[in-house]
């Protein structure tokens, strides 16, 4: 090993000198109509392969549902896309130009990927309003953040999102005091504020009532087209109501992919995931 290599090893590989990082990532290049390429991704945790040689392509403006048994690796995939987990091998590209594996979380977020977590995570000690403000798209470097002031357009945008997520009268409430479902909504709201190109939503309707579920479905469907959306959900009614193309994961790789009705009748999918009742429903 040369000295330089040794030196590199000492340095965490996911870190780059700050001044070397361009402030804005290269523009999103969507010439092939595909916004996300995951190729040959493998992740293992102490010998256990959570994701196994996975290939997944998400089209521009597509609404894709990912389903699969518990532990199939859905959340792990989102972790990889957003930079939280590094895969052992494989490649992940955002458009033609942006190599996700070379970026850290904030860079990926700035490049235009937003994420909602499986367990709702919001800034508990901030008000609903401040949560949305913080998430708002804009220059997120230190100095601009220091001097940033809300202009009317931005204020209106926050109002609009508040209406969408139905937390208008909770605008001054601490996010920590919201109920589980309300936090889910708030997190979706934060995602909207971020105006990402690609939204990753992990179990958005967990803990929501039927009607709220329907509203979420509407919202996601309306986002599709202008945004690309990847939804992970176990609620089949919900999936059916929004799904165009569905990917089924099993043991870390794709088991089936296709339209909802195709997938639904795929015996393998029924076997590992849906169960008899669902397909008859």
């Amino acid at each position, binding site marked *: 090993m040369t000295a330089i290599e040794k030196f590199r090893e000492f340095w965490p590989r996911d870190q780059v000198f700050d001044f070397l990082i361009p402030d804005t990532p290269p523009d999103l290049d969507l010439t092939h109509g595909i916004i996300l390429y995951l190729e040959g991704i493998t992740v293992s945790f102490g010998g256990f392969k959570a994701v196994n040689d996975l290939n997944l392509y998400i089209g521009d403006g597509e609404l894709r549902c990912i389903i699969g048994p518990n532990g199939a690796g859905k959340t792990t995939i989102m972790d990889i896309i*957003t930079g939280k987990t590094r895969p052992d091998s494989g490649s992940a590209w955002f458009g033609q130009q942006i190599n996700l594996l070379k970026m850290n*979380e904030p860079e990926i*977020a700035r490049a235009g990927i937003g994420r909602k977590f499986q367990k709702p995570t919001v800034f508990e000690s901030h008000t609903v309003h401040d949560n949305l403000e*913080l998430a708002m798209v804009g220059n997120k470097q230190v100095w601009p*953040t*220091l001097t940033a002031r809300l202009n009317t357009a931005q204020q209106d945008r926050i109002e609009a999102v508040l209406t969408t997520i139905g937390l208008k009268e909770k605008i001054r409430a601490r996010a920590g005091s919201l109920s589980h479902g309300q936090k889910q909504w708030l997190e979706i709201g934060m995602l909207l504020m971020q105006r990402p190109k690609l939204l990753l939503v992990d179990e958005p309707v967990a803990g929501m009532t039927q009607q709220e579920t329907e509203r979420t479905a509407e919202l996601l469907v309306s986002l599709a087209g202008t945004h690309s959306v990847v939804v992970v959900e176990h609620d089949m009614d919900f999936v059916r109501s929004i799904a165009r193309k569905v990917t089924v994961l099993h043991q870390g790789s794709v088991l089936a992919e296709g339209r909802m009705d195709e997938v639904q009748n795929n015996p393998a999918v029924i076997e590992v995931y849906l169960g008899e009742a669902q397909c008859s429903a």
Partner: protein
Amino acid sequence: MTAFPKILQNDRAGTVLIAVLLLAGVLVPLLNLSTGEASPLHVSTYTMTLLGKYLCYALLAIAVDMAWGYLGILSLGHGAFFALGGYAMGMYLMRQIGTRGVYGHPILPDFMVFLNWKALPWFWHGFNWFGFALLMVILVPGALACIFGWLAFRSRVTGVYLSIMTQALTYALMLAFFRNEMGFGGNNGLTDFKDILGFSLQSDFTRAGLFVASALALAAGYLACRYITGSRLGRLCTAIRDQEDRARFIGYRVEDAKLWIFTFSAILAGIAGALYVPQVGIINPTEFAPLASIEIVIWVAVGGRATLYGAVIGALMINYAKSVLTAAFPDAWLFGLGALFVLVTIFLPDGVAGLLKQTRFFGKRVPS
């Protein structure tokens, strides 16, 4: 000037504090210099110096509150930045002694003469200029915080790990400064200062000047901190404190924000140290002691975290209590101080500031 009211818009306690500071900055020196000792209004030099010292502590406490209260970095090593600022100022003051030292050496400070140093070490050069010393007051703590923070934050050292690392930092510095080979006077530190900018440190006039400087520094420091906490960056800090990961996923480079605020806080601490040294007349490695840094955190906690003015109140209150108790109950004051800490934690979870917030005057309007 127009920015002032805006910064303090929602901060009544802060407004009161700034007003009191400005008032004190005028009145105390006035009463000290213009009234005779017999006058009932007279403020003795002892009191003025003491107050000046408290103000420096208050500035230090604000610095810690910035890092801990708002950013969630429990720094158990802020004493190091304070002391470094103090040493930078102390070195300037040492160089001002000139030939008035006991050995009459024109360049070398006394402790170097009698330990047989032949020449001034390189890092002592330049300190005979006040401007350079001031620059170092800001640069040295700032640079140390920057390097330390850069290393720690980018490796995502957080929580108690970070706290203990700051402690290790100040502990290592303490041991280093204790070493006589370091060229900072070892255990005895730097003392026996004569004058600052040509004014004798023993004159009441100079002391009054230092007091005013401390009051102004505290006021400016407070406003700067309030400006930050009132901005979106301030809210980002609290967000980072509570949910670091989430902040990353919505696109903030958490490391950068932490680094800036931490460095800023260290610089404040350094300035506090620089003002402190000429007023107390000594700087010595025990300022680096881990326990000293823990004490700062305690001022903030007693005053109330994440309020800024709480930090000021805490620092003033505890140090005043210490001054009074060490004279009134020299044998038992530790019981009192210890009990105070215990009781405040249990009964005033938000510190004294929490108590204030419950009053009508100060309540509600303070930004969260």
